[in-house]
């Protein structure tokens, strides 16, 4: 089989990289995962910086296009392959698109910052032999609680965040939540909330995400 034209650069362990991987798997788009050794600072080398000027993962190539920022990459993938794999990740009609974009921005602006800090502090800090910042953990847990309360209320009347179908708005939450539920003692933030717990259960057991988790644990 010829090498797939789609290349994703970065480790599967990275939350942003895994966001792109799960999207590609949901869309049944073949890809090549190109390792980038962050320990060896490969992401700061000139060849990599040409693709991603901030020296972060992921970077993405498809034929003649190079992209970065995981949510932009995913939008491109869904737009290019509307009829492959899971349909409607970004919506097919204007009202649904608007709802998806709204909840994706909520993920991006309200959920992502505190959950990223907690993921780093509770999962990666000790792996990197860094001291945890207790004040930062407490502050961000309080922020995350408020966001999850909004989600709990939303998911009372809606099966998924944007509506009745699984969309990118839900998918975008998978990377950070997986770490918090699976690798920290803070799972109860999610599991103690009836609707959030139900939603998490549904989205995290999707085949595509399970494959990504396998890649992370390999």
């Amino acid at each position, binding site marked *: 089989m010829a090498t797939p034209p789609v290349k994703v650069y970065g480790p599967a362990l990275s939350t942003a990289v895994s966001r792109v991987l799960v999207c590609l798997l949901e869309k049944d788009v073949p890809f090549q995962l190109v390792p980038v050794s962050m320990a060896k600072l490969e992401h700061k080398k000139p060849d990599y910086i040409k693709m991603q000027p901030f020296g972060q993962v992921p970077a993405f190539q498809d034929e003649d296009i190079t992209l970065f920022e995981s949510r932009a990459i995913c939008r491109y993938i869904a737009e290019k392959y509307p009829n492959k794999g899971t349909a409607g990740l970004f919506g097919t009609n*204007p009202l649904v698109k*608007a709802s998806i974009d709204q909840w994706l921005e*909520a993920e*991006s602006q*309200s959920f992502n910052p505190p959950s990223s800090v907690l993921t780093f502090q509770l999962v990666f800090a000790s792996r990197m032999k860094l001291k945890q910042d207790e004040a930062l953990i407490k502050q961000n847990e309080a922020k995350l609680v408020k966001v999850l309360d909004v989600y709990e209320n939303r998911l009372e009347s809606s099966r998924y965040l944007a509506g009745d179908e699984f969309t990118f708005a839900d998918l975008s939450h998978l990377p950070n939540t997986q770490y918090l539920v699976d690798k920290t003692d803070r799972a109860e933030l999610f599991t103690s909330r009836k609707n959030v717990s139900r939603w998490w259960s549904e989205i995290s057991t999707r085949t595509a995400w399970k494959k990504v988790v396998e890649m992370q644990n390999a």
Partner: protein
Amino acid sequence: MVIKVYGSMFSFATLRVLLCLAEKDIDFELITVDLASEEHKKPHMLALNPFGQVPAFEDGDLKLFESRAIARCISLTYAGKGTDLINSDPKKAAVEDVWLEVGAHKFDPAVGTLVWELCMKRFLFGQNGDEDIVNEEEKKLVSMLDVYEARLSESKYLGGDSFSLADLSHMPIIKFLMGTEVKRVFEARPHVNAWVADMLARPSCVKVFGVPAY
């Protein structure tokens, strides 16, 4: 029925939506939410934005929150009216998306503390910013704008040759920072400087802010 935006001229996110509407030549009604008295946390506003933030948006039956989602919706719904803010070529639109995300995930956080010191402290408490903190935080803006300078030496706008949502989404905070001591960081970089001047001279900027800002 006229589009309604619930927000405040003191809110960068609200300004993002107003600039988008102005670019598209769309009339709107701004319903001012009094941030100082925490009106945005009251039940009637939580019904419009459950995160207790501004802006919220109504276009007929459509109700939305999150400024970038609102801007995207306006741009798609009214494509062909006023300025086209999303490229019709999917590859070019994807590059615009990259820089829209950069604005949200890199630029805004990098200037967050500067905005707090130079804007929010005055607005909320009538206090001046801490000079030491401003000087320290300015270094983050320098690093950020070095990347932007390199990008803008490749193309006139962030997403490519056309003005897009990627540029527009930066306008409110940049307009504010250009009125502070850190404008020197923008002015020191010729391509960034030209880009800023271009954006702040746009009719939409004049319409929303009343006078040319630069």
